[in-house]
């Protein structure tokens, strides 16, 4: 029991429409399951909320990236033009700040965008080419037209038989175990 439990990731039920999985997810939460994950071929409104996922750090990270980029941009230009090697360029002042705006702006956007994407990937723990869930035969459909709800083994309320039964009770087709490969 113990060791095969350690190989167990969770139990997964399959649904055919967004509505079904949404209600299933809600019920799972209300049934007291904490570690519930839903897998869908496209974002389903309210699903994340239903499985209790509210706040994401992506916007904050992006903001930081943007501010960083902007400061670097203007700082660099000011330092180059006015401090390290001040030169008379066509009679223009050393700190020609209006001329420094375009580069500052571009670097702001660059910083923000890179942080946004990298942040999103990192928070999603990607890249992660291996995941036990891929072992489930029918999971291939998760990227086409099927919807999956997985209750993870680490959930305190988890019990293989019990949870599986629960999933069937919320009208899941093909309930299947998700296992790590030994």
């Amino acid at each position, binding site marked *: 029991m113990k060791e095969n439990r350690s190989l167990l990731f969770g139990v997964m039920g399959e649904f055919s429409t*967004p509505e079904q999985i949404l209600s299933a*997810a809600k019920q799972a939460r209300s049934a007291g399951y904490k570690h519930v*994950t*839903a*897998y*869908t*071929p*496209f*974002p*389903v*409104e309210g*699903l*994340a909320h239903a*499985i209790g*996922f509210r706040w*994401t750090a*992506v*916007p904050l990270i*992006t903001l930081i990236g*943007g501010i960083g980029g902007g400061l670097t941009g203007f700082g660099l*230009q000011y330092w*180059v*033009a006015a401090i*390290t*090697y001040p030169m008379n*360029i*066509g009679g223009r002042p050393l700190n*020609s700040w209006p*001329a*420094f705006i*375009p*580069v500052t*702006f*571009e*670097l702001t*956007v*660059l910083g*923000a*965008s*890179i942080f*946004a*994407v990298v*942040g*999103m990937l990192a*928070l*999603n723990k*990607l*890249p*992660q*080419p291996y*995941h036990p*869930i*891929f072992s489930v035969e029918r*999971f*291939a*459909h*998760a*990227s*086409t*037209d099927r919807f999956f709800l997985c209750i993870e083994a680490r959930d305190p309320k988890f019990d293989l038989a019990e949870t599986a039964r629960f999933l069937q009770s919320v009208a899941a087709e093909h309930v299947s175990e998700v296992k790590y490969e030994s």
Partner: protein
Amino acid sequence: MSVTQPPLGTPEIRRLDPVLGPGHTYASVTDKIASVVLTRPLGIGWLAGFALTFTVVMVLFISIAWLIIKGVGIWGINVPIGWGFAIVNFVWWIGIGHAGTLISAILFLLNQKWRTSINRFAEAMTLFAVACAGIFPLIHTGRPWMAYYMMPYPSTMGIWPQFRSPLIWDVFAVSTYGTVSLLFWFVGLLPDLATLRDRAKNRFQQLIYGALAMGWRGSAHHWHRYQSAYLLLAGLATPLVLSVHTVVSFDFAVAIVPGWHTTIFPPYFVAGAIYSGFAMVLTIAIPLRKAYGLEDFITMRHLDNMAKVMLATGLIVAYGYFVEFFMAFYSGNKFDVFLAEQRLHGPYSHYYYALILCNILTPQLLWFEKVRRNVALLFVMSLVINTGMWLERFVIVVISLTRDFVPSAWGRYQPTFWDFSTLLGTIGLFAMLLFLFVRGLPAIAISEMRELVGQESHSGRDRK
């Protein structure tokens, strides 16, 4: 994402075509689009097209090699016309690039559903256009192997780029634009790559798409962060896309050359960019939907909308041309007035009239629904407008330089064989990359199409 579209079948909607052909399910859209990449055998058409464009790319390489051996003197440029085809092509390509980001970002923010089936290849087009554009600033320099001087790095000479120069702004704008577009595109691709991975027909496809998909599982958490990031990118890309062509227009607006030194440039360059961009999207979309039978996804509704955008931006551009003249005479600046007259009566006037024909007169046909719905005609017009936009840059870059301040230094410009071969070469490169793209990646965003199906069927069910 909520979609506020009146349910199908209601009276007012009948006049509008659907953005998606009837009777599609999640699976069917996925199949249709994925199959183009995964199962469909290489058609003779594709092979021929690829072979042809590949040859043209070779022409590009030869032209560049010859350029590096001999120097920019193999082109028609001289003093006073220091910039010729190279910069014209650069601005032209950059402009074309704009439509992609615009569609994917701005229309996304504006929640335009019809963007869904065209944004993917529009973005691809952006990347390829930027790639073509990027070649020119580099090779047009007299010593390309020294071009890295434009990069800010701690050299042993203790000197740095000169940040007051619009060319440096270009370096940053274009590279940022390229990077962000690439990120945006890749993020959009992630779920589809997963789809391809899961539907892969052989180990090879599995490995490639698997690696690219980074193990995307479509979990609710993923989607949540994903959407947030995508929205932010869209928000960032929108001002970026506007800034890029603004900066490009600064190359001219900041200079004192009559015909360059104008405040109208930024807005009307951006409009022009969108204009040419949409023209190019049409140029690609129309053959694409035909070749791969995607009429259900790229419907008349899309073509119609794009035509309308072209009409709108075309009018803005026309306004720009008008303001140039108005300001010349209104300001009474003798150099500007002289230049305006040059455009009408000067040695290059025929180029100017050709430009007016292509960019202002032709698009007026788009007022008529019949024209907007005539696919063949639309295709032709998109080509005409692309030519027109190229001419616009030619008029601005070259003709302004031929007769500037000191009459003793006036000159004329005649492109050489190598000018043309380089232009042709980049067109070939652009086309070749597109050919590779349609076979390597889903030309339409599958996951978003599924969403669309979801919403459509939704509204469908509501009717019951």
